[in-house]
């Protein structure tokens, strides 16, 4: 009986997440949200089967247009990361290949950590390092490869 009760409570509890969208960051808000949801699945904050807040709920919480949320969810559904069940909401479905992406993200972070240490040794302050990263990130990949 208590197991049944727990099961009911568990399925009703929606996931409460911390997202932060920056309206001045030069990147569409829906892309930022997509990245943050992806990141959450990679770090394990969101697991397979977890339910994301509904469009209205999340829009009200973040105080952004519902179209932003809808677009992010829709794009993630195209990528296969989310499953939108009509009437119930958005559910995470983390597949194996995305799991391995989490590993490559971990590896990337290790490399970045080393790079930052070296840049600091070279005498750059953190603010300069951050700006350099941002400046390079705003270029499309093609320009870099053209050189």
């Amino acid at each position: 009986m208590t197991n049944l009760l727990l099961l009911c409570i568990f399925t009703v509890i929606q996931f409460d997440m911390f997202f932060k969208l920056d309206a001045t960051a030069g990147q569409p808000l829906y892309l930022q949200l997509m990245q943050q949801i992806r990141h959450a699945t990679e770090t394990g904050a969101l697991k397979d089967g977890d339910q994301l807040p509904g469009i209205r709920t999340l829009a009200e919480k973040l105080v952004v247009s519902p179209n932003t949320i809808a677009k992010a969810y829709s794009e993630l559904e195209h990528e296969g990361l989310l499953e939108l069940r009509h009437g119930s909401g958005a559910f995470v479905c983390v597949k194996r290949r995305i799991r391995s992406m989490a590993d490559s993200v971990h590896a990337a972070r290790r490399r970045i950590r080393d790079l930052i240490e070296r840049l600091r040794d070279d005498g750059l302050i953190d603010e300069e390092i951050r700006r350099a990263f941002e400046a390079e990130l705003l270029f499309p990949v093609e320009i870099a490869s053209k050189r």
Partner: protein
Amino acid sequence: MTSEPAILTHGLTKSYGHDDAVRGLDLSIGRNRITAFLGRNGAGKSTTIKMLLGLIRPTSGSGTVLGKQITDAEQNRRMRQRVAYVAEDKSLYGYMTVEQTINFARSFYSDWHVDAEKKLLLDSELPANRKVKSLSKGMRTKLALLLAFARRPELLILDEPSEGLDPVGIEDLLRTLVSCSADGVSVFFSSHQIAEVERVADHICILDKGCLLMDASVDQLRQSYRRIDMVFPSPPPEREFQISGVKRIRTAGNQVRIFSSGNAEAVVERARNLRVVSVEVAPVGLRDVFLETVREN
């Protein structure tokens, strides 16, 4: 729902003698999204909205709101049943109490949601039996907005809704706007609060001196507008950077600052060809987009 725009105007013009408050305006405001109307004081935003609602007659041009002709009194009246509007001055009848005002407004609209009304009334902490004339400005603003937000119309038109509200009130306002939008209400609001617009608007229209200068999606602006700061070994000629998309070039000695609405990569490539020492590309906030667009005009 139909795919016709919520608001559509053709060459809408309003002249007062020699002055053109609104000039040849071709507006197209889409449904099911939040559109912000930006402009300086006196740009013609309120005049445009008043023409849409039949308060003022256009000198020339035409327009439709929800498919109804704005210049036809009867069509405009029927359209107003499906549109909620809050004026810049947040008009209310001073001699009515808060409760009487709400009852009064409710009696005219079939799209009134009593639960939304009750919730808004509770959250706003408005005293039901106090006369409007003895309410503070902030309370009056909240009441005026409540009369619109207690409804679920097809279109919501707000003229400077955040004026007179404290930061908490503004946050509540934005949250309510978002909530309405989630219910399928198309939102069209004019504002000076660029920070707020940036957060919730899907689309913006910039009006200046009666003319429409920009009609763009906010995401698109975020992706394409860039500020590029460059340092060269020696001052480069400005004409090198007259590339499409470049809006403004400022030079100070060896430094060049470029403001572009797209095509930042081409600028950077040109800079590299000119042996640039340092290049920094940064995003541009909506405030700067607005200021640059208006300054150009």
